[in-house]
């Protein structure tokens, strides 16, 4: 009888612990980057009088959102630089060369979050941003995060804008030329999960 009681207490204890552990895992919803409904675009000054616009067509990523403990959420994004598209084929080829993105040497631009803080209407995400072989810590203000359920597919969306100096990422300063040093990157992305 005493052994039975001990077994019952242990079973209850283990059950409670595993349930608690399971709850913490299930609280983080994992979303895949939806390339169809997302975009990573950029613009840079031309001769300091106008803007040149472009986008990256091949992007992937994952968001893990923990609604109960947002600090445990993670965000990652990988951009294939070869997919740069400025609506001018010759310029795109030029941008892929070593004077600019050097896509054969540095094929991806990556962001990996290291800390997440909830803010009003979104998240403040700090992480490592790697471009052109150089990694710098940046902070993104991701606005959004509201989940939408459409035909049994759950979606969540975020938007952010950030300004980066190309000279901070090892770009040759003379290659910056008539195109400004600062590039504005606009990210509008949807994450999707079944």
């Amino acid at each position, binding site marked *: 009888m005493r052994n039975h009681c001990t077994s019952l207490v242990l079973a209850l204890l283990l059950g409670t612990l595993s349930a608690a552990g399971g709850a913490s895992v299930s609280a983080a919803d994992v979303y895949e980057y939806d390339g169809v409904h997302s975009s990573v675009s950029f613009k840079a000054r*031309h001769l300091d009088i106008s803007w040149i616009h472009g986008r990256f067509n091949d992007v992937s990523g994952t968001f893990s959102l923990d609604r109960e403990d947002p600090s445990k959420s993670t965000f990652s994004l990988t951009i294939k630089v070869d997919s740069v598209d400025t609506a*001018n084929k*010759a*310029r795109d*080829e*030029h941008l892929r*060369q*070593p*004077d600019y993105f*050097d*896509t*054969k*040497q540095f*094929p991806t631009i990556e962001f990996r979050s290291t800390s997440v803080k909830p803010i009003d209407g979104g998240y403040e995400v700090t992480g490592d941003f790697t471009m052109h*072989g150089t990694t710098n810590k940046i902070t993104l203000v991701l606005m959004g995060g509201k989940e939408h359920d459409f035909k049994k597919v759950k979606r969540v969306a975020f938007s952010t804008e950030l300004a980066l100096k190309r000279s901070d990422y*090892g770009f*040759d*300063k*003379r*290659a910056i*030329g*008539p*195109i400004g040093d600062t590039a504005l990157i606009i990210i509008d992305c949807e994450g999707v999960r079944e």
Partner: protein
Amino acid sequence: MPDPLLYVQATAAAAAAGAAIAVVLLWLPRSPTAAWLNAACGIAVAVGLTVGLRVEDLHVALPPAGGLDRLLLIVIPAALLIESVAALPPVGNRFAWALRIGLILLTPRILLHGSVYVSDSETWTAWQAAISFGVCWALLGSCWGLMFALGRRRPGVSIPLSLGLAIQSAAATVMMAGYLRGGEAAMPMVAALLGTATVAWVMASGRRGVSGERPSTAPPVLPTVLIAVGVIGLFGVLFIGHFFGRVPGGRAVAICLAPLLCWVTEIAPLKHQRPWIVGTIRLCLVAVPLVITLASAKRDFDRDLAPLVVMQGR
């Protein structure tokens, strides 16, 4: 944007620095040994190249990040070191060639390190990699071996001059393909090589005249380091221009093989001509394929990139 004035300044500075160092180092010993000649000319080329790159303000990443950084910081210094070691008296010919073959085998892999060609299996299949490396080894090995053999068989300042001509054409081709930095780095390389070679040739000719070691019609033997740096520099600039830039493979191979046309002067009717006639014929022969490839590169530039530059410049 290209800055022709800056290129002229960098070229002049590289040539002057290389020549000045060569004058000082070759003037010091009364009758310099082959080891001293190689080491002195190697130092002169290295200093000239460094000065030229500084004047150009060309950023070289340390540790090396791209193909050009690895060419300037690893491959060319390795060639300088190998030729300095190879000329030391205790080092045999076989060991010297083992070192050179080692550098020939390693150079393509060093230049491609960390790139999609060696890190992404989707870019190259095993067969593509094997063929590409094989072609590069054959090209670099044959070019280095044949220019070296010609330098021994029938020396002359026309050999480094033809290599310099080819590197300058490679620089222009790489720049017209849209990779400015690749071409810019080659310009001080040519200037340092030619500045050093000219001083070495003038001083060797002067010494020969004084000592009367050789018949007056035979040109003086130039240090092998000048051939090594010329061949490795030419191959490296074309290699990064092709694999990281957009220089077509056929054009790169044509420029790389152009200096081998110097061998034409070894055929019977030309063989016994005076050295300056042989040298002139060599340079004219080498210039022919270079002019054709440059014209072809200019045509592509006018079609693809010139409209973009004009639009950006407006």
